[in-house]
């Protein structure tokens, strides 16, 4: 393989890699919005129930969603 061709391939490859690893901010915004909606949905359900079993389950789910939102913010900052 000629050197120029090799260089071209390398450039293409690294370009693709960089492109692949970068998460576009608009996609993160969309995800933030979806997770936010979910969080409010769970919160509403939690406020509406007195069943301890259901509350425990919803609280756990809420904690997971919050952890995901935190991770998303960390990702957006980096």
């Amino acid at each position: 393989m000629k050197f120029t061709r090799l260089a071209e391939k390398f450039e293409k490859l690294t370009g693709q890699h960089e492109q692949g690893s970068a998460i576009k901010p608009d996609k993160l915004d969309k995800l933030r919005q979806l997770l936010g909606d979910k969080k409010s949905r769970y919160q509403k359900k939690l406020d509406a129930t007195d069943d301890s079993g259901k509350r425990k389950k919803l609280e756990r789910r809420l904690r997971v969603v919050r952890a995901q939102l935190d991770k998303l913010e960390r990702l957006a900052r980096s």
Partner: protein
Amino acid sequence: MLKKTLLPTILLILGYGFWISPNFKEIAAGVAIFLFGMLFLEDGFKAFTGGVLEKLLQKTTDKTWKSLLFGVVSTSIMQSSSLVSVITISFISAGLVTLVAGIGIIFGANIGTTTGAWLVAAFGLKVKISAYAMPMLVFGIVLSFQKSKYLKGAGAVLAGLGFLFLGIHYMKEGFETFKDSFDLASLAVGGYPGLFLFAAIGAAATVVMQSSHATLVLILTALAASQITYENGLALAIGANVGTTITAIIGALSANIQGKRLAGAHLIFNVVTGVVAIAFIHQFVWAVDIVSESVGIADDNYTMKLAVFHTLFNLTGVLLMVPLIQRLADFLVTSLPEKAQDLAQPLYLSEAAIEFPETVLKSLKMEVWHLFDSAFEIMAHGINLHRSQILESTDLEKTIAEDREVHEFDLDELYESKVKVLYGAIVEFISHSQAQMPSEFSEEMFRLRKAAGEIVECVKHIKHLRKNATTYMLSTNEHIRDEYNQLRYQIAMILREIYRLREDVDFDHAMALLEMDELKAEIQSAHADLDGRVTSVLRDNRITPAMATSLLNDFNYVDETSRHLLDTAQALLISHSDLVAEAALEVVLDEEEIEKATVS
């Protein structure tokens, strides 16, 4: 109806036969021991698959002339073409040689067996193989107790041969009384009808005595006593050749379809050779005279001439049939088709798609879902639930608590036929297409491959769980029963959730992916709860320590299965072209983060 009554009828007939005839009992026991030997032999050879014997057999049978030579040499050494054919049947059943190579060996064995005629002619020698049975059995069993796989295999082969010899011995003993009833002189008939009749007698005598050598001795005695004509003697020898195939046919009863095909090839070869020899008997007599004269055999030395004839007609048969080996193999494959096994076949993998990366990923994903579907069925039955109960019941926990039906099925067999086959096809497809895939596709491909592996692991874990889950779901101890029902519920709930997300056409891939984290947190929480409950019920003696140990062990299987299922779903629910889902993949929590979210 027929199927239900067949076995009792056979048992009754056998029982009646044993009662009225001790000889019949001996013959039947001989056949049973012989078949038992075949099973041992096959098992023994299987130990060598992938090893030295396989390589040796492949090298010595990869060309027709080599397999012919293998048959000639091995039969000359063992002095029994029947034995070589049954061993070849076990080779073929263990997948050590191909059908064509097996047929070559059988053809060679027919030439090799003629050395016996020469030995009988020269020395009146009859190798008594049954004398070896006892030492072979003893050595074989001693070796089969060893730890080494190869020693165990060698032991099984030796014991198998020992049982074969012993079986043949009992069959011979049983038939001994019938031997004296052959009054050949009374059956003398001229012309071709006589030839066919004597060929049939020769075949029957060999079946009865289980040795063509013994039949040859009988022929020579009859010839010496002028009980039969020379030509009738030749016909008897032809029949003896056909009669030897019965041993292979009995051997094939316990063999797989390849073994049965080989026994068929043996029968066809010997019958065709026999018919040709009878049809051209005068030409053969002439040829025998020419050969005998040229090597200095006296005109009335029928013993030697019979050996010449035996060699000539078997050689003719081989020369006639060798060019037709492949056709014969094809004919046998068509006429003895493999029983259609309920094997799962890949539905979406096509070599034609390899050139198109998008299609490769799409078909691969669909195939992994297909694998998931097959595994779903096994997992559902593994925890004694119907697929419909998991997917449709309104209150899954209640359904599990109330349903105590044990699902009887062979999990190993289903794993082999439905999961392993598909997994193998997926791995093979990936290895073929990987080189053609652009780098941006390789990550998803890797994920799908990992997912397929995780599905396989899930089925294996369910296999381990099944035993105790079945025992304890029927237990009268409600505490252990409830705990195991909880384990069943956890698996069923996750399967149900995955299918719900999959069936939901409007679902958002990214959110589905993240929802798996919530399920993982539930598992984590269930684990912590279980630990607490087990300590409590054990302290109060509500379950035994053995039950507690089983429960904790099995919970680990459930835990692993649940994680694998969720990871699989995460891999299957996203696509590299869905950029929001790709972003969600970065947000998915790791094990530590989930643990933190569960306990805080």
